[in-house]
């Protein structure tokens, strides 16, 4: 075996970097019960989203599909579904499709059990059982090709495009060359650079994947236009120009550079789990943290590499987030949130390749169990599900 890591092998053959019991409320109204359970039972995390009722059918399906993908995630050892009883989410399908992956799944129904306090009590017992059942699992050596890394940038500044995003691009290329999977998103950031991404698609700009890249940008713009907003006009903004960005292409490229240089294999819809095809993928997700972190975890990513300049502190319940900070001053101020200082590139102390190798070494450590800074201080509640239509 070449480069490898130690992970928790799941019945479907995937390898987790963490071994957690996920408590999944099927609807926002089950969240308080789920929180009560997670608060009490060690080894559990909760997906405390705000969806699942009074939404259009397309969004209810999206919520169900996303929760299924989260439950199937490799860092999740077992699942407790907390249902209210009258939600719009398809709870039976949620339970069945996660169980089909071979994991233990339990469910409790708040209305049937007689309310909040009884449901919390029953949930604590069920979650405890799941933790005892799964927590003894040992890590096994796995080839690096089993890694699924998601990437993102947020709270960006001038340093992001030139330092931290380039470091992530270096790691992304290295992982893809080793046979692993890398997923990037932030469809809103593609504006002005979609032609560059489409040219990198397998089959070229006019092929299936290239056309899909144009399609996801177009439909995102149309959603904004439907409520009277033009996202493309006015780019780059006067603030961007004052900051040194001369064109929309330059702005877009600063974000795209973190995806590296490898061909794009395909586009995943927001709730989609990865396919068996390795390499670089796009997930159609917006840039805002709660929604993209959820979408990336729902892809089956074991971890995320997150670039920032001004200092984004976010984490996710079941997916470690490694912060690569491009701004040396921000790193100094926020080093208890930032995992790696890529600001040494712009001060001339290190090259992109040197910091890229440090980031890759850190990635292996985190895969093997070393906590990221956000994990260690429990900053990991950043989640929500990206929906398309109005609430009713």
């Amino acid at each position, binding site marked *: 075996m070449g480069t490898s890591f130690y992970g928790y092998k799941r019945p479907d053959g995937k390898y987790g970097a963490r071994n957690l019991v996920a408590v999944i409320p099927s609807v926002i109204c089950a969240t308080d019960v789920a929180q009560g359970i997670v608060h009490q039972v060690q080894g559990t995390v909760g997906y405390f989203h705000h969806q699942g009722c009074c939404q259009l059918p397309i969004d209810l399906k999206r919520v169900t599909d996303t929760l299924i993908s989260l439950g199937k995630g490799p860092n999740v050892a077992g699942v407790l579904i907390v249902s209210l009883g009258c939600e719009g989410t398809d709870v039976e399908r949620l339970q069945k499709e996660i169980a089909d992956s071979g994991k233990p799944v339990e469910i409790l129904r708040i209305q049937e059990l007689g309310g909040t306090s009884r449901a919390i009590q029953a949930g604590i017992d069920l979650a405890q059982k799941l933790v005892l059942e799964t927590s003894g699992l040992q890590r096994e050596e796995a080839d690096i090709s089993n890694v699924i890394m998601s990437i993102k940038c947020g709270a960006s500044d*001038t*340093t992001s*495009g*030139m330092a931290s995003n*380039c470091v992530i691009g270096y790691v992304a290329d290295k992982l893809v060359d080793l046979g692993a999977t890398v997923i990037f998103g932030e469809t809103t950031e593609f504006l*002005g*650079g979609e*032609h*560059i991404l489409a040219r990198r698609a397998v089959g070229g700009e006019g092929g299936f994947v290239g056309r899909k890249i144009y399609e996801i940008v177009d439909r995102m713009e149309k959603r904004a236009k439907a409520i009277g907003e033009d996202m*493309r*006009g*006015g*780019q*780059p*903004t*006067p603030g*961007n*120009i004052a*900051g*040194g960005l*001369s*064109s*929309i*292409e*330059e702005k877009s*490229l*600063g974000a*795209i*550079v973190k995806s590296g*240089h490898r061909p794009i294999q395909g586009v995943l819809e927001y709730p989609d789990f990865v396919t068996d095809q390795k390499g670089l993928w796009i997930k159609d997700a917006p840039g805002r943290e709660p929604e993209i972190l959820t979408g990336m975890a729902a892809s089956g990513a074991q971890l995320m590499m997150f670039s920032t300049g001004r200092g984004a502190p976010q984490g996710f319940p079941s997916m470690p987030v490694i912060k690569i900070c491009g701004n040396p001053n921000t790193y100094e101020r926020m080093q208890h949130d930032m995992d790696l200082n890529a600001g040494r*590139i*712009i*001060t*001339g102390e290190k*090259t*992109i*390749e*040197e910091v890229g190798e440090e980031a890759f070494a850190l990635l292996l450590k985190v895969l093997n169990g070393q906590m990221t800074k956000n994990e260690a201080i429990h900053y990991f509640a950043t989640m929500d599900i990206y929906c398309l239509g109005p609430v009713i």
Partner: protein
Amino acid sequence: MERKIALRVDDKDNVATVFANEVRDGDTLELRDKKGGCEDVTVTGDVPYGHKIAAQAIEKGEKIVKYGEVIGVATTDIRRGEYVHVHNLDALRGRGDL
């Protein structure tokens, strides 16, 4: 003394981004590439932090390349070390302030 750096992140780039404060016309910067290769460049124009200079001479009509991709086209001849921004670069895909 703090280094004054202009960084190029792709070998194809003909512009570099300045990471130094208060760079004035005639100042000398370290022009660095991603492998740490380094040469001096003399700046033409006052260049704010995070803005670009030409890493080599660029002729009018020539494409301006950053991140290994085209970000616009030169509207005048640009000397090595000269400030590059919206005054001498035209976007090919629209610009927000026009």
